[in-house]
Structures are given as structure tokens and as C-alpha cells.
């Protein structure tokens, strides 16, 4: 069995997360090769074959050109699996490769299980096992689901070329917004999620943060809704934090949020839904209405 791993470069840098692809291939027991659009000075620590298209020529992510480059590597390598990470790069390109090869694409794999691949369903509250119908498949892996594995060595390089028109023009990157609060330094973070119900309830959560001597954090929906400023957002598109204590108030626990806080020292989740995925990472799950529990807890602390 052979897996062609599609490594990721951004802004001319090889992304370390790409080593998770090797962790996955090791679990499958697959031989590997990698394809990469990146600069020559940024090769992975890997002794196998690397198909390299130069960033100088092909630039940052461009779906049409990158599709052709990956397909060129597929044609030479004839893999059983073409494997991406489930990122803004992977979920954009993987379906295009699947469509071009006329094979299954399976998204956001969290585990290799008997009979197929395990994927999250229903906002990560459930799981399902999916199997491709044919022998070949294009896969994306959930970030962090498989261990980082650095095979070591220096790659055997094969230059890769592609020609053709591009339907999408890359104009540039826009940097992340200024951080309003540096949550990385906080010992305690009390975060509000959609479960607090409405914007008017934010002060109740802020009061607990203050009583604990901590900072106010937020999940994506309350930031998108304009209840709390983006500078407070915890998660893959906000800040990654690891305070001594993280209290999640009314946060269901989308994977993007969990990725940003699961390394916290101690995690308390307050949620009326006992099955919410936040329960998977919580040291303590308080099954309660946030707006009843939090004021009572804050009052008790003040005593």
C-alpha cells in the first residue's frame, strides 16, 4: 500500500503539522512519498521521495495549478491514498483531486478503524465509519488526530512542473487582527459560548473571570455575533491558550475551539448538554444552565 502525502507550505514555510501525515501513514502501514509546493530550502526531514514544485514559480496556494501538480505526482507514484490535512488548503484541494481521479474523497478522518475511516458527525457529537467504494481514495485528516512523526533523512527530490490557466488569482495575505488581550499569559481564562444565550449575559461571564483573577475568552459564535471582540477568541482562528484553569461556559466544543484550549492545565465545562463534545476534554463537566450556575458560583467565591 502506498500513500502520497500532500505537505503544506504557507508563506514559503514548510508547516510542521504536515508531519502528522507521516503519523497517519505509519498507522496504515503504508509506504510514503510526499508532494510539496514550496521552496527548496524548506524540505521535510524525510528520506523518501519528495515531488517538489518551486514556490518561486507556482506561488502560494492556487487551486488550479496545485491540482495539476498533485495530479502529476499521482501519475508518477500511483498511490492507493492521496492524503491531506483537513485545513483551508486540504479541504479546498482534496475534493478537486478526488473529482479529477473519479475516486472517493473522505473528509476529516480522526481514526483508522475496522471497516474504514472514522469521521466526526453532527458537530463532533457523533462518529461514523466511512469506506471508499474503490481501491483508491483521497483523504483529509483532522488536525491533531494523528501523531507528529518525523521520519528523518534527506529527501530524494523530483522536480514537478505544470502549465495552464488559473481561474483563481492570489492577491496576498492579510495578517491576523491585533490581539486585544494576550490570553497566552493568563493563568485563568473564563470563556463564553453561544450557550450564554444573549449578548446581555456577557457581563455575568466577565464577572466570573474577574472574580477568578482571570481573562475573558470567547468561542467563535459569540465573536461572529458581535457579543465579544475578536481579540478574545480562543481556537484555531483565534488564540491558542494553555492557562492553569480554563472554564468553558456554554461552549459546545467545536474542534476548532478544542484545538485552541485542550492543553490547558485543568478544564471545567459548564453546559446543559451532557453529550456536548466539550465533555471529552473537560476534567469537570457541570451539567447546568450556565446562567443559573455562573452567578451562583461567582457569589460563592465572593464570600
Amino acid at each position, binding site marked *: 500500500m502506498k500513500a502520497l502525502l500532500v505537505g503544506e507550505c504557507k508563506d514559503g514555510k514548510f508547516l510542521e503539522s504536515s508531519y502528522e501525515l507521516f503519523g497517519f501513514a505509519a498507522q496504515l502501514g503504508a509506504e510514503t512519498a510526499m508532494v510539496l509546493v514550496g521552496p527548496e530550502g524548506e524540505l521535510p526531514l524525510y528520506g523518501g521521495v519528495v515531488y517538489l514544485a518551486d514556490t518561486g514559480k507556482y506561488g502560494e496556494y492556487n487551486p488550479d495549478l496545485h491540482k495539476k501538480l498533485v495530479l502529476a505526482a499521482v501519475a508518477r507514484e500511483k498511490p492507493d491514498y492521496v492524503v491531506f490535512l483537513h485545513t483551508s488548503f486540504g479541504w479546498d484541494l482534496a475534493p478537486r483531486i478526488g473529482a479529477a481521479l473519479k475516486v472517493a474523497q473522505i473528509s476529516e478522518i480522526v481514526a483508522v478503524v475496522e471497516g474504514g475511516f472514522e469521521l466526526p458527525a453532527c458537530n463532533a457529537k457523533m462518529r461514523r465509519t466511512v469506506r471508499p467504494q474503490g481501491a483508491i481514495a483521497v483523504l483529509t485528516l483532522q488536525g491533531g488526530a494523528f501523531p507528529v512523526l518525523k521520519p528523518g533523512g534527506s529527501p530524494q527530490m523530483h522536480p514537478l512542473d505544470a502549465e495552464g490557466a488559473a481561474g483563481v488569482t492570489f492577491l496576498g495575505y492579510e495578517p491576523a487582527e491585533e490581539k486585544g488581550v494576550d490570553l497566552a499569559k493568563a493563568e485563568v481564562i473564563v470563556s463564553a459560548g453561544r450557550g450564554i444565550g444573549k449578548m446581555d449575559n456577557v457581563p455575568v461571564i466577565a464577572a466570573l473571570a474577574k472574580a477568578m483573577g482571570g481573562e475573558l475568552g470567547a468561542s467563535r459564535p459569540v465573536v461572529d455575533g458581535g457579543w465579544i471582540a475578536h481579540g478574545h477568541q480562543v481556537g484555531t482562528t483565534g488564540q491558542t491558550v494553555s492557562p492553569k484553569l480554563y472554564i468553558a461556559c456554554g461552549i459546545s466544543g467545536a474542534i476548532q475551539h478544542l484545538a485552541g484550549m485542550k492543553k490547558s492545565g*485543568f478544564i471545567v465545562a459548564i453546559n446543559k448538554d451532557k453529550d456536548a463534545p466539550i465533555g471529552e476534554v473537560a476534567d469537570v463537566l457541570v451539567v447546568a444552565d450556565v446562567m443559573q450556575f455562573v452567578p451562583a458560583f461567582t457569589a460563592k467565591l465572593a464570600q
Partner: protein
Amino acid sequence: MKILVCIKQVPDMESRFKPDSAGVWFSETDLAFRMNEYDEYAVEQAVRLKEQLGGEPELTVLSIGPDRVVEAMKKALAMGCDRGVQVQDPAVQLKDPWQVASVIAEFAGREKFDLIFTGLQSQDRGSAQVGVNVAEILNYACTTTVVGFEYADGVVTVKRELEGGIKGVVQLRTPALVTCQLGLNVPRYPTLPNIMKAKKKEILVIPVAELLHQEPRAVTASFYPPAKKGGGIVLEGDVGAQVEQLLGILREKTTVLR
């Protein structure tokens, strides 16, 4: 100009999910359904574009599924879409993302839309494949994960949300398809007059068999709750007692309380 927005009706994610009798998807018993959250942003952006262009574009909303999906379409019509298309399929959950995309593309190919909006992904299946595959079949320019959208003279300029809060700015020419990420805009609540008006809008019903000519490329073998990792303490019952218990645990296990 012709615009299509594709929506899915999904269960409320606060629900408790149980496998259906076949064990391959959820049982619909006791579930309340609503419009997929990502698709609300897609509908809003499509309506805003129609407004920007003085109401000229014809805006079609499409959904695939059993008759209950009409409820989600009515919301989209009340938000400002002009007409609905229900691809009637009582067993849409058994189609894989490729088949779903092929059905949409089969319809959209006949209608020659200039611009197609979809959500980035559905909340229940989350494959993030359907929009991209529709574009691949139609040979449309396509970009995903859009959190900023501008349109002028056949050119779409969008911001893509990348990891770590960085955004990529990309441009594409129509015909094009974009998939919408949460936070792209603030979806409107339909007003009562618009809800009344929506009731008179046309909804065309097309049986899925007319549009489906593809075999599945992947199948769901089973659907089940995640394995409990265990170890976590669960506090239930009276709030007063929960407060005392949590305080005790924090004093014992952490150093943040004096």
C-alpha cells in the same frame, strides 16, 4: 444575472442523536430541523449581492431532501431569494457528497448560473466537499472558506479564512462558486411581511431520479456516539450543591484559588 444558493436542512445540533434502524445515520425521531448555519451566511450574501445590483439578478435557492426541507427554503425565500427548487429525495442521507454535488451540478448546468453560493460545510456531515465538486463538474472558478465578499463587473474578490487568523485575498471571474464560512456577514431575520410574501413564491419540485446519474464513491458503514474518554468528573443535580462541589475540586486540584 442568475444566482444560485444551495442550502441544507440539518437537525438542531443541541439535540441528542441516536442511530437509525439501519445504524448508518441518525434517527429523525424527536429532532427539530433548521437551515444549516453556514448556509444562512450564503443566503445572506446572495441577497446582499442582489440588493447591490438593484434587484436585477434572479436568485434561486435549492435544497435536496424530503418535504420537510421546504421549511428551510421558505426561510431563504423570506430572506430575499426569488424562487425555490426542491430536489425531492427522501433518502438524501444515503447519497455521498459526490452524488449530492452531481445532482446540484446537473440542475445548475441547465440553468447557467453566473454565481453559486454554498456553505463551507454542513453541520451534520461536515465533508466540505459538495460546493467544490459542483464547481469542478461545471468547470467554474471556485474558492472556499470565504469571510469577505465583494463583486464588481463579473469579478469576485474574496477573503479566505486561513489558520491562525490570517486571511488570503483571492480574485475570480464569473461563472464562479464560493463556499461561505461563519462570520461572513450577519444573516438577517426575515420580517413578517417578507414571510407572508415568501408564501407566494414559486417552489419547483424535481424528483431526484431526474438529476442523479452517479454511483456513490464512499459509503457510511456505521453511525455511533464517540467512545467516552472517561476520567472527567460529571456534576449533576442541584445548582447549590454543584457550586460547593466544584469549589472543593478546584481547591484540591488547582492552585488558582487562594
